[in-house]
């Protein structure tokens, strides 16, 4: 899929994603070793984006499973289409009647119905959810399990089973094996500790806030309309804001939003007034806002 770490970087770049050497190495390993990647890091540094770009650059469809509290197997794996099954039974009542009409005994009738069981518990009545969908797909896919930390521990254990054997057992149908092993990306915001088993199974990738150079490259790539000087100033200011003690430090998504907004406002350089009026795009908490405003001249220094 990827021949080298460099190729990962290049192809991600073509999909407009700047992957650091660390990210590229892990992605390369994941594709070579068929291992899921567990991505951790602050919100907004491009964890989910990584999966999307991975899908795009490998030309695979993306199957997304968004986790939340109370997510269970029925919603993640498969569910029987009960209503459809009932409907079919109703419609076929006469045929069933015919089938057992001449049965000599009750046992015989039950046997005859049992022989038809497969008709009702078949793929036809199975509605695949994201996990089963990823396993049954005709072509290899990228499976994104987003915010796994929001789901409960039981679900994690169950997911682990799927991820380690690439098969799912449906009691009525038996075991379904994966046709193609999907590339799996799991993301976590660290709302709780993940279990050891899952971590052991995955390659671990921590994405932190980018360095000045990386962030500049990202803004230049994603917001090409922004002038060189503006991009530089935005990066320098955001990096300095991150150094302040804030409740929620601005992430890459915030700096991109900011740069886009500034372009719309036709700015080609930052000045204190402009920053003050657009600061809400970068800093989301009231108290943080005050703190940044108080040290505005430091944030804007030599930019």
């Amino acid at each position, binding site marked *: 899929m990827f021949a080298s770490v460099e190729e990962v970087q290049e192809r991600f770049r073509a999909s407009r994603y700047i992957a650091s050497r660390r990210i590229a190495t892990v992605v390369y390993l994941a594709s070579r070793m068929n291992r899921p990647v567990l991505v951790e890091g602050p919100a907004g540094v491009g964890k989910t984006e990584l999966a999307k770009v991975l899908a795009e650059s490998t030309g695979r469809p993306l199957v997304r499973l968004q986790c939340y509290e109370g997510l269970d197997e029925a919603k993640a794996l498969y569910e029987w289409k009960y209503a459809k099954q009932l409907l079919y039974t109703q419609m076929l009542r006469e045929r069933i009647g015919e089938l057992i009409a001449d049965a000599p005994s009750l046992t015989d009738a039950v046997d005859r119905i049992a022989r038809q069981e497969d008709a009702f518990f078949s793929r036809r009545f199975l509605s695949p959810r994201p996990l089963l969908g990823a396993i049954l797909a005709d072509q290899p896919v990228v499976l994104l399990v987003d915010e796994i930390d929001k789901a409960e521990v039981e679900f994690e254990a169950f997911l682990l089973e799927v991820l380690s054997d690439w098969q799912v057992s449906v009691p009525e149908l038996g075991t379904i094996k994966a046709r193609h092993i999907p590339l799996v990306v799991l993301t976590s915001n660290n709302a709780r500790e993940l279990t050891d088993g899952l971590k052991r199974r995955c*390659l671990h990738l921590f994405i932190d806030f980018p360095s000045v150079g990386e962030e500049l490259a990202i803004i230049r790539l994603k917001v090409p309309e922004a002038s060189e000087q503006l991009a530089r100033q935005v990066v320098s200011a955001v990096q300095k804001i991150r150094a302040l003690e804030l409740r929620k430090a601005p992430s890459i998504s915030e700096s991109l939003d900011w740069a886009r907004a500034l372009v719309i406002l036709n700015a080609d350089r930052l000045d204190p007034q402009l920053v003050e009026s657009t600061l809400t795009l970068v800093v989301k908490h009231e108290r943080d806002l005050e703190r940044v405003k108080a040290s505005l001249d430091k944030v804007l220094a030599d930019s």
Partner: protein
Amino acid sequence: MDDRILEFIGDLRRAEMRVSTTEALDALQAAEAVGLEDRDDFRHALAATLVKETRDLPTFERIFDLYFFDLKGLGAEAAKALGREDPWARALLERLLEQSGDLDVDPLAEMLLLSDASSLELAVRQGGRGVGLERLFYFLQVGYFTRRIWDQFPWQEIEADLEALLRAAEEQGMDPGALARLRTYMELRLEAFRRLVRQHVERELARRGHGQADRLRRELLAEKPLFTLSADEVAQMQAVVARLARRIKDALALRQRREEQGKLDMHRTLRASLPYGGVPIELRWRRRRREKPRLVTLCDVSDSVRNASRFMLQLVWNLQECFSKVQSFAFVSEIAEVSESFRTLPVERAVEYALGHAAVDYHSRSDFGYAFARFCRESLDRLDRKTTLLILGDARNNYNDPQAWALRLMRERVKGIIWLNPEGQWGWGVGDSVMPLYAPHCDLVRECRTLTQLADVVDGLVQGWWRSRGAVR
């Protein structure tokens, strides 16, 4: 290479990182996949397979650097140990060695005199192979192992060779000044080699001993009576407290899952009934959510119990998200709220604030009665049935009026009162201690002289078991 990686994993484990066998195998596979050409790629590959906790990354990086040297960096370091070159002496020696083919100079001696830093370093490591460096754990052993490695080299022959070289130079009619310079050069090289050996042993110690001493210290600190801690130890405690807090949190996350069942969940029961044609054969239950406790802490911040207060505040700060609300008060005799600083400041500054900058008379004598009465008059509305009141203090009241009625009044308002006393139980009620007067109004009174005892109580508070254990007295 595999051996090296496995050995490296052994070091990570010694530094308290958990690495399973599958992860070790993954690491080998990953290392093979990325190859060794690029040191950074190699490092990232090992990190992705071996480090599963972000907090372990710094440890990993440190040990990685100690283990898989940057050959370039290493050469530079060794070159520094070698000191300044003397090109003249070097050139002279090269000429001498060429001419004196019949002298039969030991290759080691030749290397010692002429080789660059990296090959000397390699020789040192070669020498270090068989001396049992795996038993190196303490700094005191460095001298011993340096000597052991030093003794691996045939010094008698080498010195004889050096003497022979000097003699050969003399025979060629070299003047005494130049001879002295040559001799100095040789001595400096020997000295530098000795330094290289020592550096090697020290690096090995850093690599092997990493984490061991730390762990030992942590365990000792957690059991040490709090009032005996030195300023240095207090600073180290911060990490210990954070670790404890994390353990409590992790345990909580696991335990929250094993809850008893609550009410019938109609929604899910109906869905489960579908395969049975609408007959609810399988019942589904709503999971009962444990409500997070509310916490109000009253913390004696007078000098006598300062350390205990500090660690309790640190622990509470670290566990804030385990409670639905935390309100903190500091008192000596005057009492003041410090909740705001807890919400907004990072842990050290929040605790410093409570211990030194709150609107409290830090240098007066503790007066529990006055503080409690004050609290009752002004802040009683902060208490409700969902709140647990955590009081830390030695109950040494300096013969003031204990005003136990205030504590009783508080007890009527809250879910429970826990009293942590940093003084040993034998002292309660002796002298000016009024613990026995306060104890009847508390649900749980615990001695907390060490960090372990403190953590035990806070753990109980978070998990909610403390009520079942009952009062000590």
